[in-house]
């Protein structure tokens, strides 16, 4: 499945719920590496083999968010900065994945989120090997990562 002897799973989230879950249910398949921001993800990505990404970073500090709220407000929300900040948090996982892809990190990535099929297809078109599972289902996450490898 992966080149590494013990594949490394990069867990990207704003809290610790994904890390807890991965440590309990995925540690027999992966060495778990957890990070909590785009900057940390970009630093940790080299040497990892797959990614498990949270979509919404509602607990993240504004200064840790990837993206320009002012630019998003002007482009998407008629200047409404508060809505733009909320949008940045709600979409932070995809923004971080975009930054990782731009930096050349093309590992298979899985979100735990119930994306509408068209949205998931769009993410795959933009970011390559991307999948999603709707719930914290360890077997489904492994299957999805394997299908993307």
């Amino acid at each position, binding site marked *: 499945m992966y080149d590494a002897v013990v594949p490394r799973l990069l867990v990207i989230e704003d*809290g610790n*719920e994904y890390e*807890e*879950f991965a440590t*309990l*249910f995925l540690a027999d398949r992966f060495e778990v590496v957890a990070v909590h921001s785009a900057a940390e993800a970009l630093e940790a990505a080299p040497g990892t083999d797959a990614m498990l990404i949270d979509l*919404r970073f509602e*607990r993240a500090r504004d200064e840790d968010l990837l993206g320009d709220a002012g630019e998003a407000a002007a482009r998407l929300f008629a200047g409404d900065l508060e809505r733009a900040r909320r949008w940045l948090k709600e979409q932070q996982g995809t923004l971080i994945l975009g930054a990782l892809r731009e930096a050349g990190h093309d590992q298979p990535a899985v979100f*735990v989120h*119930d994306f*509408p099929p068209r949205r998931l297809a769009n993410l795959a078109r933009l970011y390559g090997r991307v999948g999603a599972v*709707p*719930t*914290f*289902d*360890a*077997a489904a996450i492994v299957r999805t990562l394997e299908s993307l490898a």
Partner: protein
Amino acid sequence: MTRDEATRLAHDVGKYVARIARNAPAEGPFPAALVPMLVKDLYALPGGKRASERFVELAPDEVAMAPLHAALTEIDALEERVRAGDDEACRRACVRALEVEAALRAYAREAR
């Protein structure tokens, strides 16, 4: 239910309430190692609130929500036994948590 309400409920309650319930082994004694995270799923969601508390905060006042409220109320009633790792209580709480998760996910899909 509005799309925002349904999405928020599915994320804040549905997604996290069944982390352990969905992955616990189906047979045999309920593993003691899973009890601390089951307790978090049910009684201390991200943000620290009980699943039932967060549900009450977010759920619209609709008849359709009553069975979910009942499921979460039952989960609350099991708390002492769940915290003690009682096998029957943990299993029953998992069944109810999966029902809540599935229903909230279905509502979120309908509301899209």
